Each structure stands twice: as C-alpha cells, then as structure tokens.
C-alpha cells in the first residue's frame, strides 16, 4: 500500500458463532458514505449502534465509501474499537475515539498490594473481558502478546485501550501484557495514558530492556507512568534476574514464564518442576534482593484443582507471592492455598501486636515474649496478617480495642 492510499479493510471476527463482537468492513469509493448495519439487537440498540459507528467515521472525517457492519451484541466500547481498527487498516488517519469512562477507571495504582492471583484474558476477545472483574482476582491482565495472533495485534491494542477506559475491573489491578520491541512500543503509546496500573514485559533478558520501557513510559505518562513486571522466559533472562529486577524504581514484581523457558532448556516441563527449580528459586531470590514481589508462572491444567492446589503450595513454599491464572475457576483455589494456616496467623498476630506496642512505646526493638524479632520477620508478619484478612480467616478488626 502506498503512503496515503486508502484501501478496503476489515476488522473483527465473522461467522454465526460470534458473540459480543462485530465484523466491520470498509470499501472505499466515490459515492457519499453509506452505512449498512445488521445487528441481532437492532430492535433495542439499533440507533445507538449507528450513532457509535458514525462517531468514529466523523472523527476520521470519512465522507465516502461503504461501511458494512455485522454485529452480535457488542458493547459500545467494542464497536468503537473495531470500527477504528478497520479505518486505520484502510489507511485512514484520525484521533483515538474513546468510550465513556467507567466509574472506577481512574482508580489509582498502588505499589504495595496483594498480587496472589492474576487472571490472563486474551486482548482480542472482548466477550471474555466483560465479566473479568467479577471473579475477585487480585489482578487482571489484558494480553496483547502471546494470545493475540500477529495480524490482530493492532486491533487488540485498541480494544484493550478502550477496555482500560470503559470496563469495570472490580477492584482488580489493571494490568496489560505488552509485546516486545517496536510492536510493544506501539502498545505503550496507545495505552500509557489510560491508567494501566502495571505492565508485564515479556521475554526480558537485560536490564537495558526494562530501562528502555521505563524511559518511553516516562515520556508518555510522566509521574503517572505504570509499574512494570518483567517476565523471565529464557536461561539468559534467569541469569540476569537481579539486574532486571533492580533495573528501575518502577519495577514492582518479577515473574517467569515456564513454557518458553522449558522449551529453551531443552527439557520438557514436568509436574515436579525439577528442570525449572533453579529458575524459580532465582526469580524469588532476585526479586527479594531487589525489594520487589516474586510472582510464579501459570498452571495450565484448568480442570485439575488438586494439582493446582499442590502447585500453589509448592510455589508459596519457595517464597512466591502469587500465581498466574488462566481461568476464573482457578482464582478461589489460589486464594485458598495462599491463605496462611491458623498457626501461621497466630504467630503473625503476636508479632504484629508486639511491633505495634513497641512503636507506641517508642522502642526500636520488637520482642515477642523473651525473643527478639528482626525487622524482616516483622515485615513478613504484617504481610501474613494482610493475607489472612484477604483470605477471610482473620477479621479485619482483629486488633480493635475491647
């Protein structure tokens, strides 16, 4: 396509089984702009759908040609995204056309928070995004990387941008996994201004890659730049783990991707995980040394809840603070297994009480009975108490007077 040439273009899935999405096709031509819209929900939203399509067309100063839309119950932010994608693919230029913001879209990011569970949702499947916020995951990751085919990266980017604005995330951390390299920088440009809390950077192998991303984000969003969570997916990445974790103050967590890592090792991924033991331990050590959270990889056998529970116990035992989830039904299992046991909670409560007493008395050292308790242990005790409250085994007001 020559620069400036307008061509026919399409966006969105087609077929009878499409739900909550739409297919848009643009055919350039000399005649005044014609709109042909077929919708299953025409009788309820016909006018609203046409208005949304016209809004994007107007933003792109589109005056000629034919726009055909076959839609199947898509929400407005999805309609806006698919039409915008179609017109851009056709070589047209225009501003981002943004949906109305959801009430909680401006929820600020928090450095310190529970990251026990994070739910991956493919960035080009809006149907799966709609209820994502209902499952109580500590974080939701809209994925622009491995779950999106190369030909759909541009469309997914716009969908995810709109989702950041219009979707109800239900209190979960707003996370996006961007692509590597130049594609990733396009992702950053599209989403940085819409309050993503944390970005996952895939296949990181050097501290410089992290530094570069942080620099780009600083330029795009200044003080509001999102946090970063690099993903180590290769032996080289594991070797550079500490440098990567410490590469920039915006790094809040470090995680690893065992599928790709195992492939590069030349050893199959096993349930026992012997082949990845060093990688997982390294991730934990590097993260803790850098003062960031170590987060474990996903468990792919969705139907095997017992297997998942064992896996969570094992990763927790290594020191991981959280697990990746690929299906909502994994979330309650992860939360349950990440919840401290009653004896752990008892111990933690004693330490936290002692710490608070010590602070009240202006005393530096914390003692439980006759034993001194070091600062890292105190910090861990506070975390254990938070986990216990989040897991529902300790009342939020456990320390109230009387």
């Amino acid at each position: 396509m020559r620069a400036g040439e307008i061509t026919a273009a399409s966006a969105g899935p087609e077929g009878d089984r499409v739900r909550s999405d739409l297919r848009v096709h643009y055919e350039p031509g000399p005649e005044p702009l014609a709109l042909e819209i077929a919708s299953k929900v025409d009788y309820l939203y016909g006018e609203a759908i046409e208005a949304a399509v016209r809004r994007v067309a107007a933003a792109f100063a589109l005056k000629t040609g034919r726009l055909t839309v076959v839609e199947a119950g898509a929400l407005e932010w999805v309609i806006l995204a698919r039409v915008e994608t179609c017109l851009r693919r056709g070589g047209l230029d225009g501003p981002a056309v943004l949906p109305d913001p959801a009430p909680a879209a401006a929820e600020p990011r928090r450095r310190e928070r529970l990251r026990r569970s994070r739910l991956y949702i493919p960035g080009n499947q809006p149907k799966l995004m709609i209820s994502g916020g209902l499952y109580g995951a500590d974080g939701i990751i809209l994925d622009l990387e491995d779950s999106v085919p190369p030909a759909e990266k541009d469309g997914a980017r716009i969908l995810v941008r709109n989702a950041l604005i219009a979707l109800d995330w239900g209190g979960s951390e707003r996370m996006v996994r961007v692509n590597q390299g130049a594609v990733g920088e396009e992702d950053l440009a599209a989403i940085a201004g819409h309050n993503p809390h944390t970005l996952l950077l895939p296949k990181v192998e050097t501290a410089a890659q992290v530094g570069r991303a942080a620099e780009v984000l600083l330029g795009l969003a200044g003080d509001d730049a999102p946090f970063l969570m690099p993903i180590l997916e290769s032996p080289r990445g594991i070797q550079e783990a500490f440098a990567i974790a410490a590469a920039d103050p915006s790094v809040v967590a470090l995680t690893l991707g065992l599928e790709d890592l195992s492939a590069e090792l030349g050893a199959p991924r096993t349930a026992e995980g012997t082949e990845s033991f060093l990688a997982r331990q390294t991730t934990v050590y590097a993260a803790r040394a850098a003062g960031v959270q170590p987060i474990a990889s996903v468990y792919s056998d969705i139907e095997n809840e017992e297997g998942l529970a064992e896996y969570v116990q094992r990763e927790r035992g290594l020191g991981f603070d959280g697990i990746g989830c690929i299906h909502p039904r994994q979330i309650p299992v992860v939360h349950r297994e990440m919840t401290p046991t009653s004896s752990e909670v008892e111990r933690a409560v004693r330490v936290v009480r002692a710490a608070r007493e010590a602070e009240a008395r202006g005393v530096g050292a914390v003692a439980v009975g006759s034993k001194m308790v070091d600062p890292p242990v105190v910090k861990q005790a506070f975390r254990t108490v938070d986990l216990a409250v989040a897991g529902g085994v300790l009342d939020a007001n456990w320390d109230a007077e009387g």
Partner: protein
Amino acid sequence: MSVKLEKNAAGRMVPVEVNGRDSVPFQGVGGFRPDGRKAAPRIATCNDFPADGDKRVGTLREALEVAGLADGMVVSTHHHLRNGDAVGNMTFDAAADLGVKDLMWFPSASFPVHANQIRHLDAGVIHHIEGSMNGPLGAYCSAGKMRGLGVLRSHGGRWQAIQDGEVHVDVAVIAAPTADFFGNANGVNGPAACGLLGFALADSVYAEKVIVVTDNLVPFPCLPWQIQGNNVDLVVEVGSIGDPTQIVSGTTRITQSPDRRRIAELAARFCAAAGIMRDGFSFQAGAGGTTLAFAMYLAELMRAEGVTARFARGGSTQHMVEMLDEGLIEVILDGQTFDLDGVRSMRDDPRHQDTSPFTSYNFHGKGNFASMVDVAVLGATEVDLEFNGNVVTHSDGRMLHGIGGWQNCLAARCAMLLVPSFRDRIPVIVDEVTTLCGPGELIDVVVTERGIAVNPRRRDLLDAVAGSDLPIRPIADLKAELDRLCGVPAKPQRSDQPVAAVKWVDGTVIDTVWRVD
C-alpha cells in the same frame, strides 16, 4: 382474525375468547376458583374390545382411521422423546394421508424436529397448535401465519385444561418405549427409553381415543406400567419411535462457563446462608446449564455441613442420581429424565420415583408437590423491577420456548431465578417484562453474576442473609449498572395482533404474545 381484548388483574391486555372458547382473564394469584366437575370420556364397554386383550393394528394410519379421526378434531402427543421424537411427525403425516383437515395439535411441548408440521399447517391439515413452540414453529406462529391462536400452558396447566374440560382430546397418540398388546406402557425400558411417560398420563385418562405406538412390544404384561392399557383403544408397532441419541444424552456435562458457575455458586451459598439448606429440606433443580451447576455446588455445601435432603424434584440427570446414590438426597421425585443414568436409576432404584403433572403441578387438585418444595431454581428470559418474570419470549416479543414447569415451580417456598444480567448486550433485568409469565409476588430471589436481588416482600430472607458476605443488591441497582454497561435499550415496537395466549396455572389468561414479523 380480530380478537376481543380485556385488561386483566396484572394490567395486561388479553383475549377473552381463545379458539372459539371463552376464557377468563387472570384474576391475581389465588384469585380464581374453579366451578363444576371434571371432564370425562364416554363410557366404554368391553363388548367393543378383544377379549384376548390384543388391540394391535397394522399401521398408525390404520389406527387413526379406526379411531375415527375427522376434520376439526384435537390430536395430542407428548414430548418425553424431546428432539428425538418421530411419532409426532408420523401422526400428522398419516393424518395428511387420510385427507383430514383443520386439526388442533395439542402437544405437551414441541421441538425443532417438529418443523415437519409447518407443511401441514400450510396445507391446512393442522389448524393451530396449543402447546409450546420453539424454533421454526415458534417463528411461524410469531409471524402470524397460524390460523388459530397459539396457547401456551405450563405442564400443570395442560393437565388442568384437560381435566377441567377446557381442552377435549379426541385422539391421543402416545409414543411408548415399551408396551404390550393391551396398551400398558412404560418409558424405562426399550431402545428409545426416555424414563417416564408422565406427560401422556392425562391424555390416556381423559382422551376419547388413545393410541399407543411402540418399537418395543413385550409379552403381556408390560411391567412396570405408567400408562394403563385399560385406557387404551389401539396399539401400533413401528420400526422406531425416535432417535435415542436425541432423546437422552450419554452424559450431562456441567457448564464450564465461568459466569454460569458463578451464578450457580452464589445461588447455592444463598440457600446455605438463608437457612434454606438444612437437614430434611427439599429442592428442585433442572437440567439446564446453570441449575445443574447449582446442584453441584449445593451438594458440596451439603457435604460440608452434613445435610441430607428429604427429596429433590427433577429433571434428573446423572448428577442428581449421584447425590441419591451418595445418600445426600433420600428420594428423587422425577418429572423428566435427561440422560441414561437418570433412566437407569428410575428403573432400578425404588427411591427414584416417577411423577406426572398431576402429582407435581396440577393446580386444580387437592394440593401438589411444587408448593411443598423449599427452594426451586429456574431460568428466565427477563425479569423486571417488580420481580415479574418472562420465560416465553425474547425482548423483541419473538417466541422462544414453552413454559414447561416454570409457572408451577413458582409455588415453592423460595423461588429463585438464576439468570445472567445480560445476554449479548440484551439486558435480562428490564423496566417491564415483554411477556408476563410469572407474577412478581411469587418470585423471591434473582441471582445474577453481578449480584443477588431479593424481593422486598421477603423481609425474612433479607434478614437471614444480612450477615453473610453475599453480594445482595437492590434490583434497581443491578438495572442501573446494566444501563451503564449495555446502554439504555429502546422500547421495542409492539404490534396489536395477538398470536398466542399465555395461561396461568389456573387456566386464566395472564398475558398475550403479539405478532412479530
């Protein structure tokens, strides 16, 4: 066809005459009292029947002829064979062959496989259908192509209509997975086993002529018998009464949809938190995706609390049977079996009892089981801010499926609708239901993936769950969230041509289905 309309107690405009019979507009819940005696067929005499008990004739066509099928008669069939049924189509093909016209088809329900009847409707063999119509038949009726008015009744309402003489069945054709030459029949044995024949029971007792059609004739006596041969005129053997793979499924899988599982889990937790789930309680759950998952989550909670249910009402599937086998349920009272495990259990386990719309649902009787159930979980297409429910049409007014036992089950102590808050942008919670099928005063709880709405009339339930961490929200709140998510929907245009009447459990007309092109 011009139809006279009147406003009923629910404020809906309904026809006062349906297919040539006077009808009573809905009078409010419990507002109508029947008067008169039960209907009955003509007295028979053994003089007219073979002393050796062999009532067989060669073909269904012959049987219809001997039964005296004539123009304008009412012909009934049952739907225990679901989308695998062959007998419904055979019956009208044979009627067409005989040159008969203007029949009223009175199925207990119809399925897409019965699209066969569209050509008989077009040709005038069938004048109209009184019974649920989904798929192509529903579209046909919605488009106003049927000559008479459709009539939608619940399972209990169908029994009531036959019993009260509102519908007089001239010829009942009963597909039987197993039968003897006398006409005794059951549904638990045979290649096309479907579990039971409860939907055909009223037809066998009250119809003038009863024809049993089987592909599995056994020597007399056919045991067990749910249909009694003493009510049967003729027996026909055919190669096959239906496709077993479409009658019952091999296994019934619980839905994997995270949304549906969430709704089901919230509903089960509600029952536990409200104290409904306790030793000796009873529940009703069907075979639909969400209600099946409900039974699974309920079973987990029952196990954890050591609770046993005295009885469960089904739609039975392997999952309910597993609960019976495990001892979580003491008895299954079953209206329909959906899979092979359900059929096997009904055949072999005395604690798995077949029922009929008479015992489960008939409102014009001396009590029924539906009102004795502690909690019933149901679906819906729409529910409105007054908790009124719709189960027969889409929001565009197009007929979707029949009522089934839905209206009857609302009599349970706690009636819960388990619904997604919207389906493909179409809100399920609306200002006013498109078609009123169930009055709000009977609908106690609406469970969606976004929260649980409790009918304000049920202060007792609200108080009982107050301390729990369940997401209880006012229904108006849920609707406001949907207005933001989906956008406020336009009000669809409603035509003024009725195509079907919706009956309530007492035979009164609760709403009208209007033509949609």
